[in-house]
């Protein structure tokens, strides 16, 4: 490591540490105003008397404050439930907005300072660490991956994985704990959309930052490969514009929040009542968005996947894919390549696809008939189960939290219903394949090891067969790392895919008998 990289790492870790420390900065004092401004009037009436003791009290951490406030609302809800007054139960999460409004001290007064001390330093450090790699010779850079505790499930990987898991749990279920982080990005959110930041803005900001910075790392690492550079640029572009900036600008223009590249069933709430209503009630643009979303599902997915394979989405456009290919790149080798995991994968990913379709069918049934029950099943229970288990736990906590433990595509491989759909097209009706170059494979294993989707690429390559697998996201890394130039991602006549190992591989001229 060069000195400048060491400095970079130091700065990054300092920025990161400051960021963690900001969680404990300032105090929280609940005021009458904070309640009034953030609670719906009917809820205000209910909650106000309960939090009497909290008002005016000084809490030194968001945890203490959040827990105290949440406990009071919970007690209230418990009472409603035991009295069977289910319609009165409060589902709105008020802890975050109330915590935000109750925050005092340096984090509010010197937000900019803390922003730069945390994010600023970390970003600067990351660049100092990454950019000097340009001086290395171009070519595959996998040295010491299995020596480093960060990339081989060592202690750094475990610490990082635990951090990510905790982060996701806080983000999805206890956002009030990380309220100070949300406050840090408030000015940015105000500037973009004119609204205060939510935990989702914080998430989008961090996500985009990760994709861009680690994307630059990819650009440098693979600067000998135009394919890798272009697709990295592509995911960086789609994340920054389509996923992050455009939706915020739409909000600023009083239009519906919409990510033009997110496709159902990955975008599982696309057909939810609230979304349909928003789109329908927003004039031409809203209707266009509705049509666009449906066209992506029924036209773009089959057609593009037919011509290019699912990679057009998974490795070039998708946000989850974008994060996996950038932030997740150091962990791609950790995916399980066993036959057993392939079996589990097929059950799981197609199971989630079926779940998503059934759930959406229920949603639409309820939408059009107004009945919440389909037979004995409550359609709202189904969708909230999907949201909790698949939307939050699987795609977030497991999908990203397990990067350093199970590889960077856990979600894409085992959970993403859109990947399952794209994969079916790719497997059965597509021009895409990875061509094996005759008999040149030396079975070294680089391709299988670095396949993030856990495909045992070598199994096919060493028997002269093309790789046609529904899960392949076409990242092209197998082709990049192959030291013998054996693999090439290609589109051609679907019938020319070599699906069965040839009896004799190129280079053996003995007579055929089969």
């Amino acid at each position, binding site marked *: 490591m060069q000195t400048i990289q060491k400095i970079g790492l130091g700065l990054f870790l300092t920025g990161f540490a400051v960021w963690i420390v900001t969680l404990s900065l300032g105090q929280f004092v609940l005021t009458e105003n904070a309640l009034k401004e953030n609670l719906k009037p009917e809820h205000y009436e209910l909650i106000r008397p309960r939090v009497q003791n909290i008002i005016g009290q000084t809490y030194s951490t968001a945890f203490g404050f959040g827990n105290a406030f949440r406990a009071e609302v919970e007690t209230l809800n418990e009472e409603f439930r035991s009295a069977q007054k289910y319609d009165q139960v409060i589902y709105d999460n008020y802890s975050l907005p109330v915590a935000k409004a109750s925050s005092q001290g340096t984090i509010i007064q010197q937000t900019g300072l803390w922003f730069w001390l945390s994010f600023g330093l970390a970003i600067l450090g990351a660049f100092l660490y990454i950019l000097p790699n340009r001086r290395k010779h171009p*070519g595959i850079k996998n040295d010491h991956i299995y020596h480093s505790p960060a990339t081989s499930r060592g202690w750094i990987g475990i610490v990082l994985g635990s951090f990510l898991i905790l982060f996701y749990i806080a983000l999805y279920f206890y956002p009030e704990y990380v309220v100070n982080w949300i406050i840090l990005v408030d000015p940015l959110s105000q500037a973009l959309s004119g609204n205060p930041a939510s935990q989702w803005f914080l998430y989008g900001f961090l996500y985009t930052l990760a994709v861009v910075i680690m994307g630059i790392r990819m650009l440098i690492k693979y600067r000998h490969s135009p394919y890798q550079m272009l697709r990295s640029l592509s995911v960086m572009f789609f994340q920054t514009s389509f996923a992050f900036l455009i939706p915020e600008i739409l909000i600023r223009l009083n239009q519906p929040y919409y990510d033009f590249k997110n496709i159902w069933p990955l975008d599982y709430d696309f057909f939810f009542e609230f979304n349909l209503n928003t789109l329908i009630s927003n004039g031409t643009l809203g209707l266009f968005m509705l049509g666009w979303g449906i066209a992506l599902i029924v036209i773009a997915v089959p057609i593009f996947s037919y011509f290019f394979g699912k990679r057009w989405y998974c490795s070039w456009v998708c946000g989850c894919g974008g994060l996996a290919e950038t932030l997740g790149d150091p962990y791609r080798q950790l995916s399980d390549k066993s036959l057993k995991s392939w079996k589990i994968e097929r059950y799981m990913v197609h199971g989630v696809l079926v779940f998503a379709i059934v759930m959406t069918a229920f949603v639409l049934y309820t939408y059009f008939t107004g009945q919440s029950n389909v037979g004995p099943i409550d359609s709202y229970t189904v969708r909230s189960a999907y949201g909790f288990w698949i939307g939050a736990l699987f795609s977030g906590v497991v999908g990203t939290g397990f990067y350093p433990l199970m590889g960077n595509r856990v979600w894409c491989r085992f959970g993403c219903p859109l990947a399952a759909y794209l994969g079916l097209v790719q497997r059965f009706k597509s021009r895409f394949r990875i061509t094996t*170059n005759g*008999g040149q494979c*030396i079975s070294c294993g*680089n391709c299988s090891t670095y396949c993030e989707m856990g495909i045992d690429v070598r199994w096919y390559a060493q028997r002269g067969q093309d790789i046609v697998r529904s899960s392949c996201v076409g990242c092209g890394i197998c082709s990049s790392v192959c030291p013998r130039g054996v693999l090439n991602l290609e589109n051609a006549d679907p019938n020319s895919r070599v699906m069965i190992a040839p009896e004799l591989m*190129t280079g053996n001229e003995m007579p055929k008998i089969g």
Partner: protein
Amino acid sequence: MKHIVILGNGISGITAARHIRKHSDFRITVISGETEHFFSRTALMYIYMGHMKYQHTKPYEDFFWAKNRIELKKAWVKTIDFDTKTLHFETPETMQYDQLILAVGSSINRFGWPGQELAGVQGLYSYQDLELMEANTAAVTSAVIVGGGLIGIEMAEMLLTRNIPVTFLVREKSYWNNVLPEEESALIGRHIEEHGVKLRLSTELAEIIPDENGRVKAIKTTTNEQIECQFVGLAVGVHPNLSLLKDTKLETDRGILVNEFLETNLPDVYAIGDCVQHRTPQQDRKSVEQIWYTGRIMGETVARTICGERTAYQPGVFFNSAKFFAIEYQTYGQVPARLPEECDTFYWENKEKQVALRLNFRKDNQALTGVNGFGIRLRHEVFDRWIKEKKPIQQVLAQLHEAHFDPEFFRRYEPEIVADYNEKHPTTPITQVRQPNFWEKLFS
């Protein structure tokens, strides 16, 4: 049921076992003292460099063998009694065979240098060698590699990942010039030096000097230069491993002698892979060819014979590949270091990108005889066909894009190559066949 015993679990032995299983129900046992499971020897360097772990280099999952009823035995065979068809292990155990396939691989060459047995001096062939290299290089501040071939350059690359400076002694006047033509040899030589290897051409090892603990502390070259080092990598080639077979009835010369059916002089004993010497090698081929692919093809072939379809070893057009630091190398057909009398050659190189292509062809009918690609991936199937078809070089160049195997969006060199050819042959210029455009390709 017939018991087929395969001695050696490398690519040749394992390929034989798999194909025998495919076509028969015979009992199959594969023996090796090196590792329990088949692993890819060619990937040893990647384990050392931390790209992979040992388990990643196993081409088949561990359950594969039992599932396919291929019995594995990890043990060293000490002697073979060909009369009673018995293998004697280092332990008192024995094993009977009905048919024996010898796939015992190679051993590394040592040319009797003083000090070649010292601690810190080693070659790289087996998994044990890799473990030894790990131990030997733990606290090393400089290393010397002897021998200008493929394993030497791999060892140099390995050591550099541990920040160990490497001096590379090459006997010839340029790198691997007994295999590569001059230009390619120079290209790789430059590339090696750019990566920080101290390349000493026309330099031979004279002796290895020990310190007081019997470890290497320096080497001396034939020009009497002394180079300090705590590690010496011997990479001066390999020879068929005959250690087990000396003074037996089995006929050997440099390797185990086999006919075109891979049969040895003894009934029911076959030999394949690195350990083989062909009595009558095919035209243009060497009698001892120690590469991965020939081992694999011999394995495929001998399986046929064992299963009742006596089949001759018929490797087609030669092919091979390697990687020198970042430069990939692929070759098809014959591109010898010295151009044969009846051949002519066309060589193109992009100096800045370190990409090169050489096409050899016959003077009389212009037929393509061989190709070398550096930093450019070439389609095996296409060159195999072109060489077999004896396609004239002009047509090859005009259709070169068909053999293109680089990933999408990579720079296409065909126009430069053709332009270069036309410059060198102004009287007979060629025009590239028009390549399909995006839309044509989309629907082709």
